[in-house]
């Protein structure tokens, strides 16, 4: 009898004590703008993995504007003191937000999961603020790709150019045959994409670093930069008459249909080719842009914001762990068309261009050629990147001289500091 009474008391006490030893329920609210078909499928893979690990995911997709609307919503949330747990941020925006004191700290997860060993150092630097991790890389897009239609090239008797001189010769031949050499959409970010591949190809990795990362005035207003603008002037002659305002995927369609031979675009163009059922090698060719001995990366990442509450913090840590984990890196990148940021992920299911991309990423990381793309907001903050794009797009769309453009470039950057 006494034993039974003691047993009942013991069970009752344990039941009361139990809630305090229950593990925190990981909970995240994720703000992102991956709302198109392929993108939302990719986000769903992360959502499913998070839920399978016992977490609750509150989705906050904000469509439109390449992230403009999402960033405005983010500012409102931060100013009202209630930031979302994780936000799709990339590049120097991460450091900008960290300076405003809005981000949390992921260093203990990073140490436990050995992030410094599985991420290339150039990529890890983008995710850190003052040496501590504040964001997690999701994928790596390569920007300096040259896409081509092999049938058009065969008809004109040209091969994939490896330098800008070879490109010019091939383009002249194509133009003489009545084929548009370069499919281009005249939106300022596309002009900027072509510009940075020319800087990389003509100037080399060190020049790219000095001009578009360190913003060295002597590099911005230099004879090499004048040569870059000369090449841009030539490229202007290789695009068709209706290029103004054209969307990038319509330019890719021009290459697919054989109306144009080349396109300079990041590897999301590959997604367009694959979605249209084209096979790499047979229907489209991929190669690094002419002269490129480096690799311009564009990384999507999730930054973890300064939230309170045990559940939110547990959710952040779980999300961070899963994102850099091998399973998610493989699944997500297979769907999105990019390559894993994590080194050493088995690439068996990826196709040829992704293999090349992953291989080049590892190689260039070792020679200091793994460089952030300025045109896609990885190398510079919005103010400086915007100032450079203004000059590039003005030069492309007018008859500004190369010397004047290089001078204007240096002045614009100085003014935007």
């Amino acid at each position, binding site marked *: 009898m006494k034993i039974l009474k003691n047993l009942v008391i013991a069970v009752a006490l344990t039941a009361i004590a139990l809630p305090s030893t229950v593990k925190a329920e990981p909970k995240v609210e994720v703000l992102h703008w991956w709302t198109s078909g392929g993108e939302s499928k990719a986000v769903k893979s992360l959502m499913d993995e998070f839920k399978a690990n016992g977490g609750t995911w509150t989705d906050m997709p904000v469509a439109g504007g390449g992230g403009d609307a999402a960033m405005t919503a983010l500012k409102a949330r931060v100013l009202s003191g209630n930031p979302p747990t994780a936000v799709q941020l990339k590049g120097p925006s991460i450091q900008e937000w960290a300076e405003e004191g809005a981000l949390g700290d992921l260093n203990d997860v990073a140490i436990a999961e050995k992030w410094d060993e599985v991420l290339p150092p150039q990529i890890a630097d983008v995710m850190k603020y003052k040496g501590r991790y504040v964001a997690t890389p999701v994928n790596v897009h390569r920007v300096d790709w040259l896409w081509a239609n092999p049938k058009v090239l065969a008809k004109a008797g040209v091969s994939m150019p490896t330098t800008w001189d070879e490109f010019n010769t091939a383009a002249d031949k194509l133009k003489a045959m009545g084929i548009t050499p370069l499919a281009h959409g005249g939106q300022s970010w596309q002009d900027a994409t072509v510009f940075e591949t020319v800087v990389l190809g003509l100037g080399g990795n060190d020049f790219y670093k000095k001009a578009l990362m360190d913003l060295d005035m002597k590099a911005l207003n230099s004879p090499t930069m004048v040569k870059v603008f000369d090449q841009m002037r030539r490229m202007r002659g290789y695009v068709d008459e*209706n290029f103004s305002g054209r969307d990038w995927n319509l330019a890719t369609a021009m290459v697919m249909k054989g109306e144009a031979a080349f396109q300079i675009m990041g590897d999301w163009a590959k997604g367009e080719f694959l979605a249209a059922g084209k096979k790499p090698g047979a229907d489209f060719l991929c190669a690094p842009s002419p002269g490129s001995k480096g690799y311009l990366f564009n990384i999507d990442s999730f930054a973890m914001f300064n939230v309170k509450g045990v559940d939110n913090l547990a959710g952040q840590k779980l999300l961070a762990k899963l994102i850099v984990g091998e399973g998610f890196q493989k699944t997500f990148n297979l769907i999105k068309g990019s390559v894993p940021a994590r080194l050493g992920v088995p690439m068996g299911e990826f196709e040829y261009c992704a293999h090349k991309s992953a291989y080049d990423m590892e190689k260039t990381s070792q020679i200091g050629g793994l460089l952030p793309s300025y045109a896609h907001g990885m190398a510079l903050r919005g103010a400086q990147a915007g100032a450079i794009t203004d000059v590039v797009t003005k030069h492309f769309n007018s008859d500004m001289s190369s010397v004047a453009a290089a001078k204007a470039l240096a002045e614009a950057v100085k003014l935007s500091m």
Partner: protein
Amino acid sequence: MSRWLQNNLPRIVMAPSLVAVAVFVYGFIFWTAYISGTKSKLLPRYDFEGLSQYVTLWSMPRWYVALENLFVFSALFIVVCMALGLLLAIMLDQKIRVEGALRTIYLYPMALSFVVTGTAWKWILNPGLGIEKMVRDLGFETFDFNWLVDPDMAIYTIVIAGVWQSSGFVMAMFLAGLRSIDQEIIKAAYMDGVSLPRIYLGIIIPSMRPVFFSTFVVLGHLAIKSFDLIVVLTGGGPGYATDMPATFMYAMAFQRGRIGLSAASATIMLMTVMAVIVPYLYSELRTKRND
């Protein structure tokens, strides 16, 4: 008590709207002007710092392009809309049979949003898809109408789209004004043997001054406000050739994280508008009181 309530009821009913306007319009105008004196970048900062944002603003070539476009666009838009609207109104005033139908047709474009107008005109003015292609297909091989992609002429395409949208509205306002003129004066003028154009120029148009004023205010505000039309029609133009202060301000604030600079450009826009509207407002209201 109820006497007081009866006397002051209008004021009490108006009070909430007045407070809302005072805070959300005028209060935030002052907030913007204050922010333009700070070094705000991504988020607002409140330590007043001086006029450095204005110095930066006036050293940017893109700002000069935006201002020039604003003046060119506003001037052309207002003048052409008013002229076209007045002409249409006078034509419709001639007691023709299908006046109702014609009036509706001319007024319809106003029902479209600027986004729809911009998209439709973008396709019409595209050299490879629209007017240039159509005329070339008809046989005129050397016809050129590539204003949309020409940095020097792109701003005029925005004028075309804007005028198409708004001249119907101006026509409706002028038609109402024309109809409200006292017919006795016109009959007297007829009896004196004055010709019809002279009647219009000498009597009718001058007596429509209030209509001119309100049309000018509405068109002026449409011109300054035109953001969606530019974004959709040219996206800021080849390069930034059709940038306007409104698109400049949006780009600086939301795409480049330079809130202080964008606040400075907004304050300059406000001062430009005030410089035009306030004297006009003062002169019109003063004349009215003297009448």
